[in-house]
């Protein structure tokens, strides 16, 4: 089954481009380290998911590019074409003359309705190119105006037009110290609206990826391209073909459906975080060897201690002992830092992954009590190595990972809202104070739900 990507705004288009680039580089690579047959199956499944074949033989990304200003899309198209290995469909993009000016209301209430038909037609055309559609993968930032506002609007349209398809929104969380001053307003409006129409939100925090670039990738002057390459690597490690437990030897047919089934058991909880291991500069890879138990030990501790990367993990954090309630425990402090999960998915790629013991992720004490631990954990595997890493493991987690960033964004937006600053910019485009209040209410509810896991 295929996934149609919808890239929205500057961030969405820049990240989206890097994702296709990574995926294409991975399937073209000679680093697969698996049987020829396996490699072919992997290649075919990947192509079906992400590319349609053009007459010229160059794979064409299953993507729709949308921005309200022309510069980013024209740049993205030309860089992609220059690679020679894949390209975007010449017809599958849409831009206008001026951006949404970082104004969510402008993107959502003005650009959205005005351009709905054109955008949905482009989507429809992409969908018609798929034999079978698994669903949509939208890529956007939540701080600007186009990705966030128009993105929320388009997501709603997708939900209406394709009620049975899955929608996964990939959302770039802004730097804490800001690129956009009204980013917290835009974020609150985006998240609350996506929460209504999306199946799940997969989040990347710019601050976290930036740190990974500095500390793990040892990049001195970090550009958005560097950041996007790490994001693309992480996303590729999840969305490249893998065997689910049920599908046995065949690659999973419905990647988005399988993901939702594994990770979103309840519509109140749909914030997904992503971690991976190992992550290092390419030239260090040749000198490194990894063992599965070592990788998974780190990955598990990254999960329970909510560490963003393999460096600086707090090894003191432990899951609560069965039966002990938090208040009576003598080690409340450690427990406070413990990250409770609803559901987790681990994806293993590379050599010898069949021998790996994943029991430590099945531990019921990692999970909230209201779900059967059997259902709360899933693993996907493939012997095909990913992106030059002989062994790699990724974790997609529906847990308290995003509780703190969410609480921060809502808190800062609320502070600003109390002073009524910038509100006039939104009412100009029809988003009123009540709309803000509704959004705040929705998100306070989400915060409360995740807090009380």
């Amino acid at each position, binding site marked *: 089954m295929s996934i149609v990507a919808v890239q929205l705004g*500057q961030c969405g288009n*820049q990240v989206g481009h890097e994702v296709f680039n990574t995926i294409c580089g991975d399937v073209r690579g000679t680093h697969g380290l698996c049987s020829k047959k396996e490699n072919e199956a992997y290649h075919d499944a990947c192509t079906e998911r992400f590319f349609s074949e053009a007459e010229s033989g160059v794979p064409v990304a299953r993507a729709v590019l949308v921005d309200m*200003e*022309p*510069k*980013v899309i024209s*740049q993205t198209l030309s860089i992609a074409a220059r690679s020679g290995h894949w390209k975007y469909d010449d017809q599958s993009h849409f831009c206008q*003359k*001026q*951006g*949404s*000016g*970082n*104004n969510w209301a402008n993107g959502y209430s003005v650009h959205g309705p005005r351009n709905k038909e054109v955008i949905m037609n482009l989507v429809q055309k992409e969908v018609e190119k798929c034999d079978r559609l698994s669903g949509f993968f939208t890529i956007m930032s939540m701080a600007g*105006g186009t990705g966030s506002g128009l993105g929320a609007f388009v997501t709603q349209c997708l939900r209406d037009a394709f009620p049975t398809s899955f929608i996964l929104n990939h959302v770039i969380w802004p*730097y*804490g*110290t*800001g*690129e*956009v*001053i*009204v980013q917290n307003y835009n974020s609150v409006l985006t998240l609350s609206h996506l929460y209504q129409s999306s199946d799940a939100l997969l989040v990347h925090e710019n601050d976290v990826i*930036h740190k990974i*670039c*500095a500390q793990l990738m040892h*990049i*001195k*002057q*970090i*550009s*958005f*391209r560097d*950041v996007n390459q790490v994001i693309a690597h992480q996303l590729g490690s999840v969305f490249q073909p893998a065997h689910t437990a049920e599908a046995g030897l065949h690659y999973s047919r419905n990647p988005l459906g399988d993901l939702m089934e594994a990770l979103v058991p309840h519509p109140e909880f749909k914030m997904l975080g992503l971690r991976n291991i190992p992550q290092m500069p390419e030239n260090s890879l040749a000198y490194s060897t990894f063992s599965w138990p070592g990788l998974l030990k780190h990955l598990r501790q990254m999960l329970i201690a909510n560490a963003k990367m393999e460096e600086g993990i707090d090894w003191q954090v432990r899951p609560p002992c069965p039966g002990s309630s938090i208040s009576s425990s003598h080690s409340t402090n450690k427990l406070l830092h413990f990250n409770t999960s609803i559901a987790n998915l681990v994806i293993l790629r590379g050599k010898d992954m069949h021998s790996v013991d994943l029991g430590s992720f099945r531990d019921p004490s990692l999970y909230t009590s209201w779900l059967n631990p059997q259902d709360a954990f899933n693993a996907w595997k493939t012997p095909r190595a990913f992106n030059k890493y002989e062994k790699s493991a990724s974790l997609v987690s529906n847990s308290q990972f995003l509780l703190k960033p969410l609480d921060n964004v*809502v*808190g*800062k937006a*609320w*502070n*600003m809202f*109390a*002073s009524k*600053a*910038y509100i*006039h*910019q939104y009412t100009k485009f029809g988003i009123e104070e009540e709309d803000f*209040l509704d959004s*705040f*209410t929705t998100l*306070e*509810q989400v*915060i*409360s739900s995740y807090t*009380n896991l």
Partner: protein
Amino acid sequence: MTQSVVVQVGQCGNQVGCRFWDLALREHAAVNKKGIYDEALSSFFRNVDTRSAGDGPDIYKGKICSLKARALLIDMEEGVVNEILQGPLRDVFDSKQLITDVSGSGNNCPVQAENQLISKYVEGILGIASPPSSRAVGYKVYGCQYRENIVEKLRKTAEHCDCLQCFFIIHSMGGGTGSGLGTFVLNLLEDEFPEVYRFVTSVYPSGEDDVITSPYNSVLAMKELNEHADCVLPIENESLFDIVNKIHQMINSGKLGSTVKPNSLVTSSAGTAKTVQEKPFDAMNNIIANLLLNLTSSARFEGSLNMDLNEISMNLVPFPRLHYLVSSLTPLYTLADVNIPSRRLDQMFSDAFSRDHQLIRADPKHSLYLACALLVRGNVQVSDLRRNIERLKPSLHFISWNQEGWKTSLCSVPPVGHSHSLLALANNTCVKPTFMELKDRFMKLYKKKAHLHHYLQVDGMEQGCFSEAISSLSDLIEEYNELDASKGGLRTDPSRLKIAV
């Protein structure tokens, strides 16, 4: 891509505008090596086929034929505008883009006669250059007289744009034409083009200004700026003067050695179309021209984090009237080597916050920020931005509800001759002293009713206009006072919404 139109009013406006067009051409020439009319060029220039008769049709694709500035030149005397038309930039403008006193067509407006009387009168009494430096005359008289003419020319200019995003007005606050007609045009733009942004670059008069009535003009104009501009970029000539001197000292002291590229100075006109001798204001006006170029660079050129013009007011104007943005440009000079060590790059960020780099006499570091934008050009990445924001933040005061009030942009095309540059825009209470000083100077005249009658003679000008204007200014100052008062206080966050579990 969007387009912008520059409306330059009065002597100051036109002289600054002239420097802007010169440097804009130079910038695009440096980037656009193939001579193809591209989207970036289209934002400020039309490409006109001059071979055909008359105005000639716009050419949207292909070779550059003849570039025409998207500009309207307005002055009530011909001198400055004529000089421009005879200078090296003459081909960039055409006569349809001009409005001067004598070129105006229907001169049968009854006010005309009266106006000439006043003009003579004021000239005689005040001993200032003709026409009278009275905002009243600029606003009420010329404005009314030329309304149709101005509107028609604006419409024409707008028709040549396929997506007009912004008007840039350039004017002085002290001159009669600049302040009066400049703000008249501002109102007119709001009526005629309500969707299009209005950015105003205003040169404020100094204490020892040669125009005696400049405080009146400025305060009357301030009311219009308060009410009708989206953003105002205040400039003080004293600050420009100091910056120019500083650069000259740096060069003459030889401290920089031989590594300075003269044409990379922000004040330099080297390599431009100019052949005539430099005029006294030119070095100062180049700074203002650079301000406008850097302000619009991210809208014109590509980058990894674009900033469209509509993002400026969205991010920097939390309340409609508080739209005065203090700007600073760094580096003032650059050394010849292209690989910048990060120490020098960081210096560029530090300088942008220092008092002596601001384009008005103000100290943002010791006042309160409502919001701050950093517009970076050239070889600078997001990590450089983050590092410098983290580094500088502790020394700056931000208002409680906007502790992370930063807007940033990364444009990959640097200014000509530089490897990188920074424009900082601060919505900061440090503009207040400029306004208070203006108010004081106004009150000194107004208490004695000095020169008031020149204004009151003009039809439609009543004393009420003066009292309204001064109370508008006082209100603005009061708003800044209230913000400043919140600075020291304890911060208590408002309590969050409670959710019933």
